[in-house]
């Protein structure tokens, strides 16, 4: 289960709409309970550095990634995953997503159809390197979970 603070969720939606019809991407930060439940309290937008067709691909530079890891350490948060958008495609990870995916990370995908947010779903690799969907819910940080 992954909980997302509404301000962070809205920032991701805004980012996806702003960048449409290209793919947007960014980092998810927060905390993790012993039972594996995650709460996303911060996000950071990052440049899609993919050369060429950004409408169906995204890429994050190694230097942006290293800075993002350092940001997590500086703010005493865990880097919990990556978000990206699928312009005019469903919020389902592609084979390209799966091959490049990292263990542990949550992959939140925002489907934007014709300039409107259609669906948001979150996925994680299992031990067999296959994606499994994880349920998510918006939650206020001062709300008990």
């Amino acid at each position, binding site marked *: 289960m992954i909980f997302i603070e509404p301000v962070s969720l809205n920032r991701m939606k805004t980012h996806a709409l702003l960048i449409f019809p290209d793919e947007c991407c960014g980092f998810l930060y927060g905390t993790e309970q012993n039972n594996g439940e995650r709460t996303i309290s911060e996000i950071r937008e990052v440049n899609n550095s993919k050369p060429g067709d950004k409408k169906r691909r995204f*890429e994050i530079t190694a230097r942006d*990634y290293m800075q993002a890891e350092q940001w997590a350490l500086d703010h005493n948060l865990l880097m919990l995953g990556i978000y990206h958008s699928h312009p005019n495609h469903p919020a389902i990870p592609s084979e390209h997503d799966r091959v490049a995916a990292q263990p542990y990370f949550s*992959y939140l995908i925002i489907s934007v159809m014709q300039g409107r947010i259609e669906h948001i779903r979150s996925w994680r690799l299992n031990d067999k390197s296959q994606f499994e969907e994880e349920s998510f819910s918006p939650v206020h940080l001062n709300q008990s979970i």
Partner: protein
Amino acid sequence: MAIVIIPTPLRKFTNQTARLQVEAGTVGEIIERLTLDFPELKKHLLDPQGSLRSFVNIFAGDDDIRDLQKEKTPVNTSTVISIVPAIAGGNH
């Protein structure tokens, strides 16, 4: 000897350790040492042929080892080695 920074997604394979000191003279020896000490790291760092996976970048300080001497890049006690997963994807 060098300091090695383990990225968040791979820390589950290093007992949640983010920084390790590894006795080695080159980047290749560091990778070998890591995969011996933490066998589950191997499939995430190396392909079936034993080469560095294309989705893994190794930095010595601020420099990608592909721009240096690759796995033969020498390290010393002040070298900080960062393992950096390539983050990419797309809709089809």
